[in-house]
């Protein structure tokens, strides 16, 4: 049952997680650990912090996220991630689509009770 539940969550996350990552970068840029820590508060959405990094790699190649290095007083330089204009557009599109989608799913599930 746990394995089936994990498999289901994996599928559900696939369409959504990258937009949540974009949302976490909407107001401000962040470095990897910082972003992972922000997302780790949402355990159902983001169970494994390491899965953030392949996602960020793809979003960089997609042109939704760009990176820059900044020196750190506490050690080696940090790689910061921030949204590109295309990333903001993608996030806006998702945000507009999500609410009616979520409402429909909730309604269908509620009506089937």
């Amino acid at each position, binding site marked *: 049952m746990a394995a089936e539940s994990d498999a289901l969550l*994996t599928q559900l996350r*696939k*369409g*959504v997680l*990258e*937009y949540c990552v974009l949302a976490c970068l909407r107001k401000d840029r962040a*470095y*990897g*650990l910082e972003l*992972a820590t922000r997302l*780790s508060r949402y355990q159902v959405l983001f*169970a*494994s*912090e*390491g*899965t*953030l*990094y*392949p*996602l*960020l*790699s*793809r*979003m*960089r*190649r*997609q042109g*939704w996220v760009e990176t820059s290095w900044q020196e750190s007083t506490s*050690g*080696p330089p*940090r*790689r910061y991630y921030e949204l590109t204009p295309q990333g903001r*557009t*993608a996030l806006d*599109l*998702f945000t507009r*689509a999500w609410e009616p989608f979520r409402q429909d799913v909730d309604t269908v599930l509620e009506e089937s009770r």
Partner: protein
Amino acid sequence: MSRPPAPEHPLVAAYLADLERALVAADPREREDTLDAVREHLREALGPAPSTADVTEVLADLGSVDVIAGTVTPAGHTPVVALAAAQETLTAPARPAGPDAASVVALVAGAFALLLVLLVPVLAIPVALVALVVAVLRVRSVGSSALAWSAVVLSGTSLLVAALLSLAMLSTGGDDEPSPGPVHSEPLDQG
């Protein structure tokens, strides 16, 4: 300011080696980006001399290397970001942009058939028929496409008009037998 890097904790070294093995079949760039980013994550989270307990906790939060490897793009595949349907150019393989070529051909053929109707209706029939078949096939494969539907309407109309005109010409052609004119008898010249 630069100091020699602290020796890696053995659990960290083992985790990174496992992760590298788990990513062996991954897209090369994603593999390198992921490994670099995870190393950086560990450096930031643990500092120079972490305890085994701290390392264990941070590695548990990172998650199993197999779970991470399960989310990477396999080598040889174009990375896909989900829900990119709203921005078609983001999905692979890329779909051809611009008008559907077959529908354009059907539309042009339909227009040509309509022109032929005015000149040689009988010839317009096969042209319109071919145009109509192509247009109907495009509608069935691409679904609701204004271009494909326009081709159907134009070629269908051409075919109908050509058929009707040809039938009309055939039926009036039967009545057009030259009828003999009135017989004139010229009086013989008497002289």
